């Protein structure tokens, strides 16, 4: 048990250092995946088996896939270079972080367990899905339902956020840019609307697009 803690803890810290220090964003997110997997292992050593499984599936799986997807979509894997607006920000953050970590470590070793550790660990029954479900659906029923609404709002909100605007920022619909007299259906492949439907088009073009859809 002690060996597992030392190994997983050291790997988690190494992963965290990779996360904050890697120049390439893809390397940083892979470092975070390593940290998350190590934290999942630490959950397992803390009698929280259900949380360990959830951590691997939700965090190391779904959330990190989303991160990698966005990094590659935005082509943001290269580091930002240029003028640093805050002087000595790295040094200050390093000193501050070291002091904070030292304070946390000192504080942590002043903590005393309220009752013998073996006794309280046995009360958790391994932290399986049953004991979690009992707590969630009795004492934490309201937060549980609130979280479900939150997830729905997050889904709808993210869909709404990444939607293309219906018209260009200047308020002029795209179709008005088409030269007058263009034969409907004669438009080249590159002239078709790239992202979703637009409103305010000329009736002939609208009919032509409907024809394209049915064709």
């Amino acid at each position, binding site marked *: 048990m002690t060996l597992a803690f030392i190994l997983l803890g050291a790997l988690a810290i190494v992963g965290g250092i990779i996360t904050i220090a890697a120049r390439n*964003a893809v390397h940083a997110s892979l470092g*975070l995946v390593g940290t998350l997997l190590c934290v999942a292992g630490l959950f397992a050593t803390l009698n929280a088996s259900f949380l360990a499984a959830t951590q691997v599936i939700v965090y190391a799986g779904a959330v990190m896939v989303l991160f990698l997807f966005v990094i590659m979509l935005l082509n*943001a894997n290269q580091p930002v270079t240029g003028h640093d607006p805050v002087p000595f920000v790295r040094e200050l953050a390093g000193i501050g972080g070291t002091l904070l970590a030292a304070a946390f470590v000192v504080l942590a*070793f002043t903590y005393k367990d309220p009752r013998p550790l073996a006794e309280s*660990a046995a009360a958790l029954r391994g932290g399986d899905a049953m004991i979690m479900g009992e707590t969630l659906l009795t004492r934490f029923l309201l937060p549980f339902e609130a979280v479900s609404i939150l997830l729905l709002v997050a889904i709808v909100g993210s869909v709404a956020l990444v939607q293309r605007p219906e018209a260009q920022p200047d308020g002029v619909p795209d179709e008005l840019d088409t030269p007058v007299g263009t034969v409907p259906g004669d438009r080249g492949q590159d002239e078709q609307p790239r992202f979703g439907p637009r409103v305010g088009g000329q009736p002939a073009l609208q009919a032509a697009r409907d024809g394209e859809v049915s064709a």
Partner: protein
Amino acid sequence: MVSTSSYLALSGILFALGMIGVLTRRTAIMVFLSVELMLNAANLALVAFARSWGDPTGQTAVFIVMTLAAAEVAIGLAIIVAIFRKRETTNVDDLAALKG
């Protein structure tokens, strides 16, 4: 059985690492990754306290924090994508002004 203090110390170190990342990284996505690191450090402390007290409340809180983090990532990354389309950058220094 490893003492609760050791887990809390590890959690504090991970939290401080995440804080350094939030302060020094300049891409919005990297700031997000560091925030995830801090959330996980807090989760580790909660699970350690849950074992210390023999009460599954801490583990339930971690479950809810995980859900919140997933929602936060979904919304935050959508905002980053929307900003990137408008400004062609995710550098937080360039995005400091709220002017549209």
